C-alpha cells in the first residue's frame, strides 16, 4: 500500500505550527457581544430569588438571563440538565445566570451586580453515601425524566443508572476456587485540561437561523441537542466546529453552547461569545467521574480465575445525561480482557453535588483498570505465580469468551503481553542505584470497545475537481488525534493518488455530511469506513466511465497513481482528471456529469444485549486490547516517584499512520502517568480546591519517561484496511502499570490514585511500624 501504513506528515501540521489555524477563540465578528456567567457558591442550594435589576441597569449590558428564561431540560441519554440552573443549584460553580454585554469587562461587572438568594441544602459529596436511603435526593423528579431505553434510572434515589452483568454462577465459582480475595479502590475526579478551554459563539438571525461556532468534538450531536433544547428544526441550526485545541472527551457533549444561544436570541443578529477561563473549565465543563471499586476474585491454585464479582459506584456529579453511558461501558468491560467463566458486576451511576462527570479519554476504562490490574497482581502474589503468568493464563485468546458472553474470533492480547515482557526485559529485576532509590518494573493490560449505541452512523462525500484533485468531506473531527490525516490516507489509498491531492473538510453541519460523534475511538474505524466507501464509490464511477472511454472492461482496469491503468498493459492509461466532470463523447456530447462518491456506514451486526445479564452476541463493535509496562524509581526519603520507562504494545488491527500512532500512544502513556502520579480534582464539601494549574499538576516534558511503542496487528475484519480504534484504549493500562511497579518497588499497595510523594512516605512509615 502506498498511503495506508505510511508516516505522512499531518495535513493540518503547517497551519497549526505557524499559528495560522483559526480556532473559535480567534473569531472576532462585527457587533459581537461577550457573555459571562454567574455561578452558585453552594454545592446544593435552593434558589430563592435572583435580582438582575442592577446588572441590567449597567451601561453596555444587553441581556441578563436566568434559568427561568429557558426551563426545558436536555441531555444526550437522560434529559436531566438545564444550561442554567432551575429551582436548585446542584453543584458549586453551576451557572445560575448569564449576561451579554458590549465588552467582557462590562459583562464581568454585571455578573457581580446580580444578587442571588439561596437556601443551602444538605449535599451529597460521596457516591456511596448518596446511594443510602436517607441521602438527600438531588433530582426528586428523576422518575419522570425522558431517558434512552437502554438506561434504567431508579426513581426516588440518586441512582440514574444501574448496569448489571451476570455470567455463569459466580457463587459456585467462588466455592470451587482455592483462593478468594477482595479489595477496594478509589479513583478521584480528574479534568481533561485541553490546551484550549471551552468556547462558543452563537448568532441568531432574523430568518430564524441559528449558527453556533463551537470548539466541539461532535457538531451533529451538538446540533441535535441544541435543536431539541430550543425547539428548532435541524435545518435552522448550523453548528460549525473549526480547529479544536484538544478535547479528550470534554468537548463531546453540549455545555456552554446552551448559555450563549438564548443570549443571542435576545439580541437578534448579534453574535455572542463565551470563553471559559481555566478555572471555569475545571468547575463547569466536564470532569472524569470518580469511582469506588470493589473486586472479589476467586482463583484456582493453577492460576485460572474461576469467578469475579465487581462493583463500580460512580461519583457522577450533578447531572448524568452523558455519564450514564460511561457507567454502562464500564459494566460491559467490567472484567477487563480476561476469560472468566463466572462473573457478576454492578455498575451504578450516582448523582452527587460534584462537578458534572462526562466522557474522558478511556470512558471509564482507565478508572476500572486501576482496580482490575492491581487486583490481578495481588491474586498472582497470593497463589505464588508471577504477574505475567496470571495474565498468560487468563488473558483473552482467539476463541475466548468475554464478560458479556461474546466469543472472540481473534485476540491480540497475548501477543501484546509477550512483546511488552520482552521489551521491558521483564524477568530481569531492575537494579536500584542506591538503598534509598528503589527501582522496579510493573505490567498491566487493558481493553476498550467503542462505547457507542449499536446503530450510530457515519457518512462521507468525496468530490473530484477538474484537475484530478479531491475534496473529502466528513464530520469526523480532528481534535488533535490526527483523524484529518488518517482519513485522507484512507481515501488516497483507495483512489491511488498522493494524499496531497486530497483536501479534507470537516465540521459544518450545513455542508459536511452526518457523523454521530467524534468519540469512542471510533473515527478511524467508523468515519474511516465511510470514507473508504465514498472513495470506492468514486473509484467505481471513474472506472465505469473509463471502460467507455478506454474500451476495456472494468475488471481489467484499476486506479494507479492518478491514472486509470490497464492492469495487464500499464502503458494503456488515462488520467483520472479526464472523468472529473463526467465524460465527453466523440460526438461532443457529455455524459454522467461531475464525479461525486458517497459512503454511509453503520457497524455491521452490532446488537443490543440482555439488560438483566449484560450478555449478547456482539454488544460492541470490537475490542481493542493491549499491555503497558512501566519501570519506576522511588526516592524512599522524599517519596518522589520517577517513571523511567514505559512500553506499550496494542493491537490496532492495522496502523494507518505509524508516526501518528506513536504520537497517540506516547500522549496516552504520559496522560496516564499524570493521573497515576499528579492529577486529582481536590474536592471539599463540593468545592474544587485546585481549579487552576497552580495546584492541578499535569506532567511536563521533564516528567517524560523513555517511551517505547510496539504493535501486534491482528486485522479487524470490519475495519478500514483492518484498522480498529486506538485513541482511548492505549491510555487504559498506563496508570495501573505504574501502580504495579510502585507496589513491586516498595512492597506496599496503593488503592487510590494519584500516588503522591506524601502517600509514599506515609505508607513506608506505616510499613516500618508494622514490621517493628
Amino acid at each position: 500500500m502506498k498511503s495506508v501504513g505510511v508516516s505522512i506528515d499531518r495535513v493540518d501540521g503547517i497551519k497549526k505550527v505557524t499559528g495560522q489555524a483559526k480556532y473559535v477563540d480567534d473569531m472576532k465578528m462585527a457587533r459581537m457581544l461577550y457573555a459571562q456567567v454567574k455561578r452558585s457558591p453552594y454545592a446544593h442550594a435552593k434558589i430563592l430569588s435572583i435580582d438582575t435589576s442592577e446588572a441590567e441597569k449597567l451601561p453596555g449590558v444587553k441581556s441578563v438571563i436566568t434559568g427561568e428564561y429557558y426551563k426545558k431540560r436536555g441531555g444526550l441519554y437522560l434529559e436531566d440538565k438545564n444550561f442554567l440552573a432551575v429551582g436548585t443549584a446542584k453543584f458549586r460553580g453551576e451557572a445560575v445566570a448569564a449576561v451579554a454585554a458590549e465588552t467582557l469587562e462590562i459583562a464581568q461587572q454585571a455578573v457581580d451586580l446580580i444578587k442571588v438568594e439561596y437556601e443551602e441544602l444538605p449535599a451529597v459529596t460521596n457516591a456511596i453515601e448518596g446511594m443510602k436511603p436517607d441521602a438527600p435526593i438531588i433530582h426528586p423528579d428523576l422518575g419522570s425524566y425522558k431517558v434512552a431505553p437502554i438506561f434504567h434510572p431508579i426513581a426516588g434515589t440518586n441512582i440514574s443508572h444501574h448496569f448489571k452483568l451476570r455470567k455463569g454462577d459466580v457463587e459456585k465459582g467462588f466455592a470451587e476456587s482455592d483462593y478468594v480475595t477482595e479489595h477496594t479502590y478509589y479513583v478521584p475526579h480528574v479534568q481533561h485540561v485541553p490546551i484550549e478551554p471551552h468556547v462558543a459563539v452563537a448568532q441568531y438571525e432574523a430568518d430564524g437561523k441559528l449558527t453556533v461556532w463551537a470548539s466541539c468534538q461532535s457538531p451533529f450531536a451538538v446540533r441535535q441537542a441544541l435543536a431539541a433544547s430550543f425547539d428548532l428544526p435541524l435545518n435552522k441550526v448550523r453548528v460549525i466546529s473549526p480547529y479544536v485545541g484538544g478535547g479528550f472527551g470534554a468537548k463531546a457533549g453540549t455545555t456552554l453552547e446552551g448559555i450563549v444561544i438564548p443570549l443571542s436570541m435576545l439580541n437578534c443578529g448579534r453574535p455572542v461569545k463565551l470563553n471559559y477561563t481555566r478555572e471555569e473549565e475545571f468547575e463547569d465543563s466536564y470532569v472524569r467521574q470518580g469511582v469506588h471499586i470493589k473486586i472479589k476474585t476467586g482463583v484456582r491454585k493453577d492460576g485460572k480465575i474461576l469467578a469475579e464479582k465487581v462493583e463500580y459506584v460512580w461519583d457522577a456529579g450533578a447531572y448524568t445525561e452523558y455519564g450514564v453511558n460511561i457507567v454502562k461501558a464500564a459494566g460491559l468491560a467490567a472484567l477487563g480482557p480476561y476469560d472468566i467463566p463466572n462473573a457478576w458486576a454492578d455498575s451504578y451511576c450516582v448523582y452527587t453535588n460534584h462537578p458534572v462527570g462526562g466522557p474522558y479519554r478511556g470512558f471509564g476504562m482507565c478508572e476500572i483498570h486501576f482496580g482490575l490490574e492491581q487486583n490481578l497482581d495481588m491474586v498472582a502474589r497470593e497463589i505464588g505465580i508471577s504477574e505475567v503468568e496470571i495474565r498468560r493464563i487468563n488473558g483473552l485468546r482467539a476463541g475466548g469468551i468475554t464478560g458479556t458472553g461474546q466469543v472472540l474470533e481473534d485476540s491480540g492480547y497475548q501477543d501484546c503481553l509477550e512483546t511488552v515482557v520482552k521489551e521491558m526485559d521483564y524477568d530481569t529485576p531492575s537494579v536500584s542505584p542506591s538503598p534509598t532509590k528503589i527501582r522496579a518494573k510493573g505490567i498491566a493490560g487493558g481493553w476498550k470497545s467503542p462505547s457507542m449505541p449499536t446503530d450510530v452512523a457515519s457518512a462521507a462525500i468525496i468530490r473530484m475537481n477538474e484537475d484530478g484533485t479531491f475534496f473529502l468531506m466528513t464530520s469526523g473531527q480532528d481534535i488533535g488525534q490526527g483523524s484529518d490525516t488518517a482519513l485522507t490516507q484512507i481515501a488516497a489509498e483507495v483512489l491511488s493518488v498522493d494524499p496531497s491531492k486530497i483536501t479534507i473538510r470537516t465540521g459544518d453541519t450545513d455542508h459536511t455530511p452526518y457523523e454521530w460523534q467524534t468519540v469512542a475511538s471510533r473515527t478511524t474505524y467508523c468515519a474511516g469506513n465511510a470514507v473508504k466507501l465514498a472513495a470506492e464509490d468514486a473509484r467505481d464511477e471513474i472506472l465505469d466511465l473509463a471502460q467507455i472511454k478506454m474500451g476495456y472492461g472494468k475488471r481489467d482496469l484499476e486506479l494507479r497513481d492518478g491514472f486509470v491503468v490497464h492492469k495487464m498493459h500499464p502503458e494503456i492509461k488515462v488520467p483520472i482528471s479526464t472523468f472529473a466532470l463526467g465524460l465527453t463523447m466523440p460526438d461532443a456530447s457529455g455524459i454522467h456529469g461531475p464525479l461525486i462518491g458517497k459512503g454511509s456506514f453503520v457497524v455491521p451486526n452490532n446488537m443490543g444485549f440482555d439488560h438483566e445479564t449484560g450478555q449478547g452476541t456482539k454488544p460492541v463493535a470490537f475490542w481493542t486490547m493491549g499491555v503497558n509496562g512501566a519501570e519506576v524509581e522511588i526516592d524512599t526519603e522524599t517519596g518522589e516517584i520517577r517513571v523511567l520507562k514505559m512500553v506499550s504494545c496494542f493491537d490496532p488491527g492495522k496502523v494507518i499512520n505509524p508516526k501518528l500512532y506513536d504520537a497517540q500512544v506516547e500522549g496516552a502513556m504520559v496522560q496516564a502517568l499524570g493521573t497515576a502520579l499528579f492529577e486529582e480534582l481536590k474536592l471539599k464539601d463540593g468545592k474544587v480546591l485546585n481549579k487552576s494549574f497552580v495546584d492541578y499538576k499535569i506532567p511536563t516534558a521533564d516528567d517524560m519517561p523513555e517511551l517505547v511503542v510496539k504493535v501486534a496487528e491482528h486485522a479487524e475484519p470490519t475495519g478500514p484496511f483492518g484498522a480498529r480504534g486506538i485513541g482511548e484504549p492505549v491510555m487504559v493500562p498506563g496508570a495501573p502499570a505504574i501502580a504495579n511497579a510502585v507496589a513491586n518497588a516498595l512492597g506496599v499497595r496503593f488503592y487510590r490514585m494519584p500516588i503522591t510523594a506524601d502517600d509514599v512516605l506515609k505508607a513506608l512509615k506505616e510499613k516500618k511500624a508494622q514490621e517493628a
Partner: protein
Amino acid sequence: MKQFNYLAPKTLPEALQMLADYKESAVLFNGGTDVVVRLRDRLIAPDYVVDIKHIPGLDDISFDEQNGLTIGACATMNAIGENEAVCKHYPFLAKAALSVGSRQVRNRATCIGNICNASPLADTGTPLLACDAVILAEGPDGRREIPIRDFFIFVRKTSLKPGEIVTAIRVPYIAGAEGVFTKVARRREVDLSTVCATVLRCGDEFRFAFGSVAPTPLRLVKTEELVRGKKPDAALIEQAVELARSEVAPISDVRASKEYRMDIVGLIVRRGLETLAK
C-alpha cells in the same frame, strides 16, 4: 480586570513621587508575574500601575568581595541564575532563582519581586535569609537598609513602609561558605515549593533557612545554635533533625500534609549536615 493607568517612570524619584501621589490606588509593577495574576483574579484593582522596569540601572547585578553581591530590583531570575558571580560565589542562590516557575516566567520574574511578594514559599527567600542579606529601600523619608530577617512579617506582609521602593538587595560575601538549596515539590519543573530550604556552612557554623513551613521563610535559630562549632556525628544529626522539626510550623494544604513537610524538613537538615560536614 479593571481598567487602570499604566505609568512608566524613567527615574527613581519620579517613581517615588507617583507612589506618594497615588498612594493606595497605585501598585508597583516589576516583572509582573505576581501582579498580573492578582489583577486577573481581581484580588487587586488599582487605578495606577507603576512599572519600574524602565528605570535605568535597576537591573544591575554586581559583585566584589568587600560589598558582596548586589542584585538590582529589576534583575530577572534568569539573569541572576546565569550570572557568573552568582554561580561562582552563591551557587545555591542561582539554583533557587532557576527553580522558580518556568523559563518564560523567569524571564520576567525578579528576585526582589519574589521577596516583596513575601510568600511563605518564596524560592529565593531561603538563600538570602541564610546569607543575612540586606534589603535596600528608598522612600519618602530617604534610604534605609533592612536586614532580611526583619523584612518578612507575615504571609504577604513585609516591613516596607507605604511609598517605599526596594532598589536592590545586598548579599554579603562569606569566604569559604558552602551552601545547598533544596526544593521539594510535587513536580520537578514549574511548581511551587512544598518545602524549600537553604543549608549554609560558614566555617564551623551551619545556617538553616526554610520556606513553606511557617507564615514566612525563616531561620532555624535553635538548630543552628545546637550544631554551632560541633562536628555533626550521627547522634548530633538526629538531635538537630528533632530540634528542626520543633522549630517549624507547617500546615496541611492541597500540596502536602503537615507530616510530609515535617519529614522533609528533617531530611533536608540531615542531608545538609551530612553533605556540608564532609
